[in-house]
């Protein structure tokens, strides 16, 4: 027994070395860490060879790595809830609501049509439509900062649309977990479980609105040690309890984050959670990769490629419409779609919900290929947005009148 425990720490340590190596490499290449973690996770695993004492199959530790990954999802969504605030959304204004609606609607509808037309059953189609619609907040925020785009006029709209997209994700996950995890076979039963999860969500909204003064008092804890224990206890308990009600545990974490975001302790909790989110979040991507047999990808590649092309087109079109509606130039508008096209953590979480609900296992390799491509291609499209715009402008001639004038003026001066 003692010997096994020793192995466990060593295996987890080996896994963390891989994770840290991926992070270093991603940092060096100025790339998002997400695709590296998934790829490395896929390369190792049960089919990997093992050299002497280094065992890359992670057989004993697979359970604990998976559990860490699950914890990563809790932290990712808890943080999303903390960051999120209805007030922020209201303040951000009309163009964001319009843009966000266009974005989610276009992606979801096209995703649904795609899933349906390639022959998936209805539930799988819903999951595919959902995972195609949720942009990766993590990658987008990182790319905007890295490429020094934060000052651009379209950036506010991009982040607003992402915020809107996150609400969509929350509602979508609640409804889907009611549908999939309720385990009901009758229509009435299904409706009941959807209503339960929606009611559960509304309950948290009410607590967030009305309970803030009480929570402020309860959380007024000086000692950091006690504070972290109270916060983590409530996080894990609420998430686990949600699972009992057939509401995905991720949603429980998100809703609790939402409640805490209304308290005056929001910033303190955020600071506390960020390192845990980063650590367990990284293991989440690695563990997702680990759970995928690279030889199973074959059947899903073409499906995923189709979805990638669809996503790029619908993101570009939705960005163009939202940007123009918000009064931005064609060039700034084209940046929107080319930035929010990145896919990552949330698409995987949506797919995992479907898998937990017993849907077709092909969802997993499909999502893996889809996320891998868009987590790599997305930031590249963002980086090259200027050139892409110029090519598109030559085709559509959006701004052919103003350009030559400006060149003339430059020539003269």
């Amino acid at each position, binding site marked *: 027994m003692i010997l096994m425990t020793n192995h466990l720490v060593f295996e987890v340590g080996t896994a963390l070395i891989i994770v840290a190596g991926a992070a270093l490499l991603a940092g060096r290449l100025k790339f998002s860490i997400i695709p590296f973690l998934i790829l490395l996770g896929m390369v190792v695993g049960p089919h990997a060879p093992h050299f002497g004492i280094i065992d890359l199959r992670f057989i004993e530790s697979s359970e604990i790595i998976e559990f860490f990954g699950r914890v990563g999802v809790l932290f990712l969504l808890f943080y999303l809830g903390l*960051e*999120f605030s209805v007030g*922020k959304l209201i*303040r*951000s204004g009309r163009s964001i609501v319009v843009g966000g609606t266009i974005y989610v609607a276009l992606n979801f509808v096209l995703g649904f049509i795609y899933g349906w037309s390639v022959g998936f059953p209805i539930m799988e189609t819903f999951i595919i439509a959902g995972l195609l619609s949720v942009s990766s*907040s993590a990658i987008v*925020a990182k790319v*905007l*900062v890295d490429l*020094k785009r*934060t*000052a*651009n*006029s379209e*950036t*506010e709209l991009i*982040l*607003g649309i*992402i*915020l809107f997209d996150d609400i969509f994700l929350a509602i979508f996950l609640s409804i889907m977990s009611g549908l999939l995890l309720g385990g009901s076979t009758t229509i009435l039963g299904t409706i009941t479980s959807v209503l339960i999860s929606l009611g559960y969500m509304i309950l948290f909204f009410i607590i967030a609105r009305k309970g803030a003064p009480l929570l402020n008092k309860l959380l007024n804890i000086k000692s950091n040690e006690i504070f972290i224990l109270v916060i983590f206890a409530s996080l894990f308990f609420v998430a686990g309890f949600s699972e009992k009600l057939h509401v995905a545990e991720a949603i429980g974490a998100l809703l609790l984050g939402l409640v805490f975001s209304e308290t005056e302790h929001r910033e303190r909790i955020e600071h506390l959670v960020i390192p845990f989110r980063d650590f367990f979040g990284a293991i989440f991507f690695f563990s997702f990769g680990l759970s995928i047999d690279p030889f199973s990808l074959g059947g899903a590649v073409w499906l995923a490629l189709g979805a990638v092309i669809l996503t790029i087109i619908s993101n570009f079109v939705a960005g163009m419409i939202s940007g123009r509606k918000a009064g931005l*130039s064609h*060039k*700034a508008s084209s940046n929107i779609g080319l930035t929010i096209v990145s896919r990552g953590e949330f698409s995987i979480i949506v797919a995992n919900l479907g898998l937990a609900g017993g849907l077709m296992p092909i969802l997993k390799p499909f999502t893996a290929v889809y996320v891998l491509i868009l987590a790599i291609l997305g930031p590249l499209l963002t980086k090259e947005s200027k050139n892409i715009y110029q090519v598109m402008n030559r085709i559509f001639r959006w701004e052919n009148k103003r350009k030559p004038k*400006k060149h003339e003026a430059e020539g003269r001066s």
Partner: protein
Amino acid sequence: MNIREIELPGIGKKYEIITKSTDKVVIIIHDDGRRDIYYFDQEDYEEAIASTTFDDTESRQIAAIIGGMTYAPKALETIEMAFDDLVIEWSKVEPGALAVNQTIGNLNIRQSYEVNIVAIIKRNQKKIHTPGPETLLEVGDTVIVSGQRHQVKTIVKEILSRRDG
């Protein structure tokens, strides 16, 4: 000048500034304390032509410099606090001024101008409160004078400023 404050969820806050000369400057305050400053040409508000990043300490120091906390521009050096006609004025002893290397008593300030020297800030930042008649005035000293507006103006002009100016 036109300043717009915009929330950037997940990143921080953005301040978009259009100056009188129609330059566009954008300041991003990241949640982690970093500040980015972007400069846009008047011709094109869409693409920044220059940018730089400061950490929290640097930005505070730079803010103090820009805000004039350590050094106020010459043209604005006279900060006036007016109570009706009674004013307090900060003024530097300029090189070549009448007051250079003279004592307050020698210059007979109180009698000739009916003003008081409330304090002197020496060049090395040493402060002298209610200086006596034996106090020496040197180039670069900041003299804080209180009195009637026109008399304060006169003393600044006649004995603290450069004579040829």
